[in-house]
């Protein structure tokens, strides 16, 4: 994913904020001299929950810690830190996968619940591709939300990318059909499709999305090459239900984690990667076009559990 320059300063500042929050508490619990007892396990579990990893995952890790202590492989509290980093690494390293854009046109379908950052991510991705000399087309398939089309068009103007659109309220499948046709006819590098936000519990809207995907498949076998669920970092345990249901209904190729520039750590993706085996492909760390990067598990782990 060379076109997404490894994120520089921006990502570090974003992640640093989250880091500061957790680091102090973790440092207090994992002091070398602190005796390993029940209260330590409880506090550790709470810190993991505080990162939105979820109670089951937190319990699994503390159980693992108990085992290591029982076998004598861990004797001091601070040794739990590398243990936890490895535990996360085992889940997240395989989950970090690049986008598959090796097609012409590569078709990317952006989906997710309302307000998670789909439109912004479409624009950021289009801008990143344009920067590396790719020819990109955007499709405004959110025909439902007021001024969603204008929002994508404003981005298109800003980054110099054409937007395929129709009237508000028109059939998103028709927009997508036109867009795939145009991208194919013009032999473009990529087509990025912005869809309307929807809660994963609305079966009629999920069916609409499945239909959208079928339209693309029929028109261009093998496409869409990426169906990405956009999830924002403040989301709690419901993010798991979102990923599961979008995956069941549409079939996801990965997750984009946005708004990592806040204080939320986005820990729910660990559970998503672990239980659903879904790749985490991109992260968003701000509102500007350049605030997008590949998911870097090491940085993510550093933010959750600094090395020391």
């Amino acid at each position, binding site marked *: 994913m060379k076109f997404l320059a490894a994120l520089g300063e921006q990502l570090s500042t974003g992640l640093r*904020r989250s880091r500061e929050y957790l680091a102090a508490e973790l440092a207090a619990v994992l002091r070398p001299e602190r005796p390993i007892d029940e209260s330590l396990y409880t506090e550790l579990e709470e810190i993991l929950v505080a*990162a939105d990893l979820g109670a089951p995952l937190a319990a699994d890790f503390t159980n693992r810690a108990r085992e290591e202590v029982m076998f004598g492989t861990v004797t001091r509290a601070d040794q739990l830190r590398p243990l936890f980093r490895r535990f996360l690494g085992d889940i997240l390293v395989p989950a970090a996968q690049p986008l598959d854009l090796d097609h012409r046109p590569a078709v990317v379908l952006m989906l997710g619940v309302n307000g998670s950052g789909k439109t912004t991510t479409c624009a950021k991705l289009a801008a990143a591709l344009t920067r590396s000399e790719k020819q990109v087309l955007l499709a405004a398939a959110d025909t439902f*939300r007021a001024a969603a089309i204008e929002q994508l068009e404003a981005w298109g103007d800003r980054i110099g990318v054409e937007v395929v659109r129709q009237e508000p309220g028109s059939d998103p499948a028709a927009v997508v059909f036109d867009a795939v046709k145009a991208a194919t006819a013009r032999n473009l590098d990529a087509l990025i499709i912005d869809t309307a936000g929807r809660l994963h519990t609305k079966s009629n809207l999920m069916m609409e999305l499945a239909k959208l995907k079928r339209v693309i498949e029929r028109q261009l076998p093998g496409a869409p090459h990426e169906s990405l669920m956009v999830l924002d970092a403040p*989301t709690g345990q*419901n*993010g798991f239900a979102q990923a599961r249901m979008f995956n069941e209904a549409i079939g996801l190729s990965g997750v984009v984690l946005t708004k990592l520039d806040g204080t939320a750590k986005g820990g*729910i993706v660990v559970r998503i990667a672990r239980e659903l085996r879904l790749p985490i492909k991109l992260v968003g760390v701000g509102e500007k076009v350049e605030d997008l990067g590949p998911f870097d598990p090491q940085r993510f782990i550093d933010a959750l559990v600094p090395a020391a």
Partner: protein
Amino acid sequence: MFDSLSTRLQAVFDRLGSRGRLTEDNIQEALREVRLALLEADVNFKVVRGFVERVKARAVGQDVLGSLTPAQQVVKVVHDELVELLGGSGHRLSPAQHPPTILMLIGLQGSGKTTTSAKLARLYAKQGQHPVLAAADIYRPAAMDQLRTLGAQLGVPVVGAPGQRPLEICRAAREEAAARGLTPLILDTAGRLHIDEAMLDELRTIRSEIRPHHVLLVVDAMTGQDAVNVADRFNQAVGIDAVILTKMDGDSRGGAALSVRQVTGRPIAFVGMGEKTEALEPFHPDRVASRILGMGDVLSLVEKAQEAVDQKTAEELVRKLREDAFTLEDFRDQLKQVRQMGPLDQVLGMLPFGKLLKGAPRELSAEQADLARFDAIIGSMTPQERRHPEIINGSRRQRIARGSGTSVQDVNRLLKQYAQLRKMMKQFKGLEGKLPRAGLPGFPTLRG
């Protein structure tokens, strides 16, 4: 996943075999389950800690009431405590002595401020007032267009033009409201991070210059542990008077409500229940408490049904659900009503065991059901067929299809959906007994 707290507590107490009085010893394990349930519902862990202590203090020493099992007794204590902490219902945003009353919406990016602004405008307009909206989000592309479009749909004026600064827009809106006698004035501000000092400064300036009567923090109900940081920082930096919880039409347990309430002490005024501008409801602590505990929101369901149909029809439906006496005629009525109530899956989502009702939502979504065609098909059946659809064989299907101008496939589809609904109701019946039996707040109507 689905395992309501009461079921789990039941298992704990069954194991303990305890009866009689709740003691520190015999509720210890139960409290662990309570803690887990709250964490799963995204209540912040610090809030959970305090909460469990309070529940313990309240429960220990209580005699288990004759009609309750120990598990139910604990659920009741937990539920009551939650309701209390969530605060009163129907918090009203009091009108200002000198209109316009000014409401200012603030919150994170994507939390739903613009949609909520329009919902509030609609609510006040429906009450006969003349609201005005200020589009003070100059940063997100087309945010102004979004509010303008919504304003136009509602017939509510929107102030703000490209090139103006947020404070300027708010001032102009206040002047316009005063000049034209419009109230309330609703300020839609740009989403921002609670740690973005420059942007918080902007909110502080608007607050001190425009002097809104109610600063409303808009919080996404799907927010996790970070809700406390968000609420605390916004409250410290800008000051908030009440909270609006959005996207409660999904299946999130909404534990953020408790977190936000605890760290700010501010009441929750409204909950957002959908994308349309009418989907704004008053906050009911008892319902949200049931939801946080994974016990569903049966009262909302019944109320929703009542909105669409009248009380008697709703009771009738509940009775038929229970007695499994649901005919094709009922099916047709239901389809009609469900269309007014919102998608059936949303309605089912409010039931504690909604997710267990497999196979239903997909096929039965009201939007999918071709009502006009179904109407015609059912209209072509004999009364006997409507009441006993099992007699509808191949030749009857052909006759019905011909009579209704539809195809045999259509008739089959209808019968299939009906059969699915019946099946679903059987599941419903089977599950009903698993709910706590005593009169817990939150679900009186479904038990006769």
